[in-house]
Each structure stands twice: as structure tokens, then as C-alpha cells.
């Protein structure tokens, strides 16, 4: 699974993306995997939305290794 980080999350992870083998996971499982790799992301979990293949997903989403997942911190465009 390809996981993308943006904005200040990149300062935490020190990378823009991460390849992670997750199998078939739900949102909780995914977050556990991600925080396991980058514990510094834990405090941001509450404010970060997840996108799967360029679309926001809710807490009932499921993810597989072929998905591109993005961690979307609060946006500030415009």
C-alpha cells in the first residue's frame, strides 16, 4: 500500500510517502500500522482525514495493498 503524507505531517514522518504491506485492513487497522511506523503521527489522528485513491473515505472504509492512501491534515488552500 502506498501511503502519502502532506504539509506538517511530512515534517513528522520526514518523508512524503511510505510503502507498507497491510493486507486487507479497516481504518483502525490501517492507523495502527501507520502509527507503528511513525509514532509521531499519533497526536494528529483526530484531525486527519483519510483518502483512498483520491477520494475521502469514512470510518467504515476498508483498504487493500493496491490502494493509494493519503493522510489529509486540515487544508488551507485558496
Amino acid at each position, binding site marked *: 500500500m502506498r501511503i502519502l503524507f*502532506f*504539509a506538517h505531517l511530512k515534517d513528522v514522518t520526514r518523508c512524503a510517502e511510505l510503502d507498507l504491506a497491510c493486507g486487507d485492513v479497516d481504518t483502525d487497522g490501517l492507523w495502527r500500522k501507520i502509527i507503528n511506523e511513525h509514532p509521531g503521527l499519533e497526536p494528529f489522528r483526530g484531525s486527519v482525514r483519510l483518502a483512498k485513491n*483520491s477520494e475521502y473515505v469514512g470510518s467504515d472504509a476498508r483498504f487493500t495493498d493496491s490502494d493509494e492512501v493519503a493522510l*489529509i491534515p486540515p*487544508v*488551507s*488552500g485558496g
Partner: protein
Amino acid sequence: MQIEIQITTLPVPAPLPPPPLTGAGAWVEFRGIVRGEENGQLIAALEYEAYLPMAEREMRCILEELAGQRPCLFAKVIHRVGVIPAGETAIYAGVAGRHRAEAFALLTGFMDRLKRDVPIWKCRALTADNLAKLQAP
């Protein structure tokens, strides 16, 4: 509704001509300009980043959704990313409609949603020194 979206590192052209659309009675344009201060500090530029395919897709979805409630004829959006000097345009959005009410409603509704949902970030502010270093050859 015809939609044009660009996310680009190039400067947004200063004046854009109104679209020659039959039936358009209103053409509303908005430019969001980088101000010379951020949180009370003087700054020389802001750096923006975008999650490109999703940002474009999300902008298109928002425009289509809003146009369902407020039918308009045409919308064009240009969001600049990368380093944008103070005084320059970060976002340009133009909407043409039959009447001004729906054009204003679509444009302001779009800007509200953009600032909530479109994955684009002001990732840092640059002082004049930072900017000069970046621009040095």
C-alpha cells in the same frame, strides 16, 4: 456547466477575458492574493502544496454538486502551488451564470468548500531572506 480546472506552479495571468457565452448575464471573478503578513509576521511569500489528482477531482466534484443547486454556465479555477510571492494570486475562480445571484452563490459556496475539503496546503511562510535564497541562482 462547463468546468476548467488548473493547478499550476506558474503565475496566474492577471486579467482573464470573460467567456463569450450565450445567455450569460453575470460573470463573477475572485482572486485570493498572498498578503504580506501571516499571523502578524511580515512575510515575502507563501509556499503551497497540493495532492494534485485529488485536489483537481475534489474541485470538480464541488463545482458539479453546487451547480446542481445553483445552475451556472461556466466555471474556471486556477490554483497556483509552489512558492507564491506576496501580492500575487494564489487562487483564481471565475463563474458565469444567467443571473448574478447564482453566480455569486456558486463562487462563494465553492470557496467555502475549497477551504474545507480540497487537499491544498499553505505549507510554509517565507521571509524576504528565505525567498532571496530560494531565488538565487
